[in-house]
């Protein structure tokens, strides 16, 4: 008959189309940003520091390089009722206007500012998952204004690793599955190196307008001796994170204790049942089943998710690396100061 063959033909065509779109994605190696995007991000984040702000990244996805050519900021959200519709309208409006002037109309991710490096939160992961549904490859750029006051351009490009995303989607963040995949807290986020590129026109302008001056503002920032406030805040946050980590570990201990208690209860109940059954067999009656799903002691206790613990561990690790970096700088500066004093 014509119809089944047509239907069969239709299905196989669909299958053919779907296999074509599943080409292998080359892994993302570098994020290439234009100087314009860098400056815009810095301007927006610095203007509103210490409030945290976000914005959208626009660009192109080319092979193993993700190019970010432009960006626009999101307005601050005060109340949450009308925020969603407004936000979507604003985004559509901006994208439409930018398309009219030939800016790349392709969303490749979003950027956000953070406070002393504390950006690893559950919201970040959820935003990633939301973006990942629509865009094949997206990246999050994090800018830290407080660290940039130390003279380092604190821009980081982050992406969730694929294995973590699979696990998160299937809600499999339990101890066993994690051990299976050998996933530890290091494997949640993947940092991608950033490359900065500028058009020839703009670099010609900048070279003309800003003569080669021997020192600039960022040198002054780097050679400042007073890093104490920054270090103090880092340590404060570190201590807070340690508290969080210990409370997470307590949660686990509680869970394990409950689990072992439940198991011993189950064993006791099982013993009683077996004895009852033996008595019934002797009396010639039917034995009762050895399991009773309605009994509350057989209810499986859900294992708490390890996500929070992992995120806190990530934060601790980034604070530690900040402290290491700044201490390294401090050593250099102190020796320099000593050398100057000796003259």
């Amino acid at each position, binding site marked *: 008959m014509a119809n089944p063959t047509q239907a069969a033909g239709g299905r196989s065509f669909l299958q053919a189309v779907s296999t074509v779109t599943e080409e292998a994605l080359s892994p993302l190696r570098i994020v290439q940003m234009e100087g314009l995007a860098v*400056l815009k991000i810095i301007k927006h984040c610095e203007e509103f520091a210490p409030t945290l702000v976000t914005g959208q990244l626009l660009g192109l996805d080319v092979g193993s390089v993700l190019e970010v050519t432009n960006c626009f900021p999101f307005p601050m959200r005060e109340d949450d009722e009308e925020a969603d519709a407004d936000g979507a309208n*604003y985004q559509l409006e901006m994208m439409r206007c930018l398309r*009219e002037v030939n800016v790349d109309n392709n969303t490749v991710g979003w950027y956000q500012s953070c406070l002393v490096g504390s950006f690893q939160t559950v919201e970040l992961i959820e935003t990633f998952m939301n973006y990942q549904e629509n865009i094949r490859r997206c990246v999050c750029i994090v800018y830290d204004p407080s660290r940039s006051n130390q*003279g380092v351009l604190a821009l980081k490009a982050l992406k969730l690793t694929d294995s973590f995303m699979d696990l998160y989607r299937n809600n499999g963040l339990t101890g066993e599955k994690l051990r299976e995949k050998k996933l530890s807290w290091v494997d949640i986020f993947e940092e991608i190196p950033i490359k900065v590129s500028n058009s020839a026109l703009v670099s010609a302008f900048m*070279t*003309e307008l*800003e003569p080669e001056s021997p020192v600039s503002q960022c040198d002054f920032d780097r050679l400042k001796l007073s890093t104490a406030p920054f270090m103090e805040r880092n340590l404060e946050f570190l201590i807070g994170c340690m508290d969080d980590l210990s409370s997470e570990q307590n949660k686990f201990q509680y869970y394990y204790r409950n689990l072992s208690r439940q198991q011993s209860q189950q064993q006791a109940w099982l013993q009683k049942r077996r004895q009852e059954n033996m008595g019934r067999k002797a009396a010639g009656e039917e034995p009762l089943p050895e399991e009773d799903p309605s009994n509350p002691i057989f209810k499986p206790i859900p294992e708490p998710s390890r996500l929070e613990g992992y995120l806190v561990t990530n934060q601790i690790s980034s604070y530690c690396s900040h402290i290491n970096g700044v201490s390294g700088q401090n050593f250099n500066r102190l020796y320099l100061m000593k050398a100057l004093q000796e003259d």
Partner: protein
Amino acid sequence: MAPSESSRAKGPVLLFPSSSSASASARVEAVVVFNICDSYVRRPAQAERVIGTLLGSVLPDGTVHVRNTYVVPHSESADQVALDVDYHHNMYASHHKVNPKEVIVGWFSTGFGVSGGSTLIHEFYSREVQSPIHLTVDTGFTRGDASIKAYISSNLSLGDRHLAAQFQEIPLDLRMLDAGKVGFDILKSTILEKLPNDLDGIESSIEKLCTLSDEIYRYVDDVVEGCAAADNKIGRFISDSVASMPKFSPAAIDKLFNDKIEDNLALVYLSSLTRTQISIAEKLNTAAQML
């Protein structure tokens, strides 16, 4: 089709170099220059120049601080200019939502000098804001150098008849302090392979300091030997800088230095300890299993 504004050029345009009686001055941030260049590169094929709106704020001393900008599509021919007003208002509303402090302060165009069509556009903008600034960014490098100039206009009229629009150049401060923070290396080169991290940055800063002090040594030596002319101002400046280093006794310096070194070592030790601890904790947590 979006409504647009078009009219014919009327009257000649007079261009005057900056005069001392001009009270306004302008300051431009690096983002503005970058945005203008980027939009010039992306302009539609038939357009010779791009124009757009300048956003910013007016400082209390009368300086106009230009902080942001966006391109407005326009079309112009020999005697007609059309500007997409709706687009301009939409973009302004969107930008205003993000940063309510930024208001329209003028407009820019690429290309050298002020042309006839510019007067009409300037008139449009003077309806939006009082005495707008007109910024020209010479992307064609017509004079062989990068010239960015700012103008304000005043109308010349004889009685009731409008004669011409006079564009007066105003002083422009192109220091671009925000770009200084990012580091000019990032902004000047066409490709920068990777962003410098903590230690790279301090290494380059210390190198620069060394080169500077070498130069000063050489200069002072030259002056002492009589090879170079002695400039009193420079000499005083050098002695001021050297004197600005606080003088402590060697014992005090040593104590201060050692204290700081100890603090830093303690911090490094603490952070390494924390790192080891969290990796052990993580192994213990995931390795524990119930039978």
